[in-house]
């Protein structure tokens, strides 16, 4: 069994060399249309850490909101458009009939609120424009914030319905594993130490040591190991490691579903994603209601020879940026570790275990089961959802 991921190389590792620190976040935003906000934010953080830029409390909150907008939009897209057809036994959301009409409505309603939150904070849902090294060029007005809160409150019911559907789904694939992820105290995807279910906790100041050990230079989408073992990142990892840090309103409404965690059922990744949507809604409401944003002065950055690491949680798991700059502030080296690459090793062994259990079954059924399992991981690759070509040998 071999999992071969074909993707067209754009050679970003080489392309970012020589790029000036201020423009670099916009260059890497184009690595991924799906989670461009994650690349933008993580790269900006790495630049700031390298250059010694202190960001304001307001900027930190706006970053959290930017990531919440991304999580709502991206998880909603994955759950409603890609996972829901599996649950409903349909090829796609386009084939949903009258009885599933509400779900289609919910899908686009929830997704668009995430989209609007991204637009409010970074200017666009894909390739944001307001975010820059040191801060934001535009901040939400009081009126914007009030309208956004209303929209967010308006989808809570739909999101709780979504959580129930994911909870009732009886798909199961269980195998013990190590989970790794950032565990922020407010579950904000932005900061905190890296934890693993095997008991490791790595503080911020050791990120770069840790990364150097993990990184395979100029790898061609090769996998990664944590403590020399396969591991899994993403919503399931975050929920297993840190569910106690979810927003209080979220915990209040989904307490009974949280009992499922910690879980080693890969399909619980989807339940975890749905719960993260609710958390993103609730914490965004709190931030937008409790804070008046004001335009801040642009932070002056003096380029110098330096290096820095940025780590955030992208929708699909931990994203690492390690950047080195020359004295004029141009990137000399950049190493990016993306979540899908980290999950590659364990995804391959899960498929192997799944297929072993299905030997003798119809080939079409095996193909569909493999696709379904891969979809639960929510991998980010060319046509993440419907891509499997099995070479039978």
């Amino acid at each position, binding site marked *: 069994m071999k999992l071969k991921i074909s993707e*067209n*190389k*754009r*050679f*970003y590792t*080489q*392309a970012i*060399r020589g790029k000036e620190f201020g423009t670099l976040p916009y*260059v890497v935003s*184009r*690595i*991924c*249309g*799906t989670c*461009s906000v994650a690349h933008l934010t993580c790269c900006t953080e790495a630049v700031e850490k390298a250059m010694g830029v202190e960001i304001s409390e307001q900027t930190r909150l706006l970053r959290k909101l930017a990531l919440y907008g991304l999580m709502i*939009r991206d998880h909603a*897209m994955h759950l409603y*458009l890609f996972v829901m*057809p599996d649950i409903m036994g349909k*090829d*796609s*959301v*386009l*084939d949903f009939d009258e009885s599933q009409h509400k779900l*289609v409505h919910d899908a*686009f*309603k929830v*997704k*668009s609120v995430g*989209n609007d939150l991204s637009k409010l904070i970074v200017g666009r*849902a*894909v*390739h944001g424009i307001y975010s820059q090294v040191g801060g934001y060029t535009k901040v939400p007005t009081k009126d914007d914030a009030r309208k956004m809160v209303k929209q967010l409150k308006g989808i809570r019911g739909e999101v709780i319905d979504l959580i129930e559907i994911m909870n009732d789904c009886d798909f199961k694939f269980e195998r013990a594993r190590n989970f790794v992820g950032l565990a922020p105290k407010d579950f904000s995807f932005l900061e905190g130490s890296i934890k693993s279910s095997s008991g490791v906790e790595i503080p911020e100041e050791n990120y770069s040591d840790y990364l150097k050990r993990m990184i395979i230079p*100029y790898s*061609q989408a090769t996998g990664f190991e944590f403590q020399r073992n396969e591991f899994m990142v993403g919503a399931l990892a975050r929920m297993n490691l840190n569910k106690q840090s979810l927003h209080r309103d979220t915990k209040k409404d989904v307490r009974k579903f949280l009992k499922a965690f910690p879980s080693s059922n890969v399909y619980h990744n989807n339940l975890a994603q749905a719960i993260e949507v609710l958390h993103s809604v609730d914490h965004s409401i709190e931030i937008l209601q409790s804070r008046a944003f004001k335009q801040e002065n642009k932070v002056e950055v003096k380029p110098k020879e330096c290096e820095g690491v940025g780590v955030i949680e992208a929708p699909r798991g931990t994203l690492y940026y390690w950047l080195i700059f020359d004295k004029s502030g141009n990137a000399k080296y950049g190493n990016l570790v993306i979540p899908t690459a980290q999950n590659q090793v364990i995804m391959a062994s899960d498929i192997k275990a799944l297929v072993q259990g299905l030997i003798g079954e119809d080939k079409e059924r095996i193909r569909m089961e493999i*696709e379904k399992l891969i979809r639960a991981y929510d991998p980010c690759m*060319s*046509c*993440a*959802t*419907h*891509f499997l070509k099995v070479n039978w040998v």
Partner: protein
Amino acid sequence: MQRLKVGIFSFTGDEGCVITFLEILNYKFFEWRDLVDIRYCKTLKSKNRMEGLDVAFVEGAISSEKEAKRVKEIRRNCRKLISIGSCAIDGSPSNHRNFFDKARMKEIRPVMKKFRHLKKVVPLKDIVKVDGEVPGCPMLEDAFVKCLEAELKEFGVV
């Protein structure tokens, strides 16, 4: 009334345009459902057909022999082919390697050879006839809506 048969295809790029298309569906899905037959969109469905399309919307630049062959196949199967987004229109930003110096080219050569990459990353119009463009990185939402609605008229759907 026959619906407009469309396909959405992705080549070398970050798929930001197809994501933008999915965002447009947030407010256009129910209006377009009776007018547009999405026959090919791998992001949305498993069972895809590319034969007999009215309009193929294509994102991404062409970077390998396989892609060049594939885009020609799409061209043969559609009446109109429209480039969506900057990569498809002029190759950028997926064409970083076109501007690499010798040292960088040397680094990437083994990968290029292995995956039969073309010497340069090229826009769609260098390989096939293109009938229209929706600009932006990612493509501009309003421009795409306008473009699709114009096609609905042109093909007599509305």
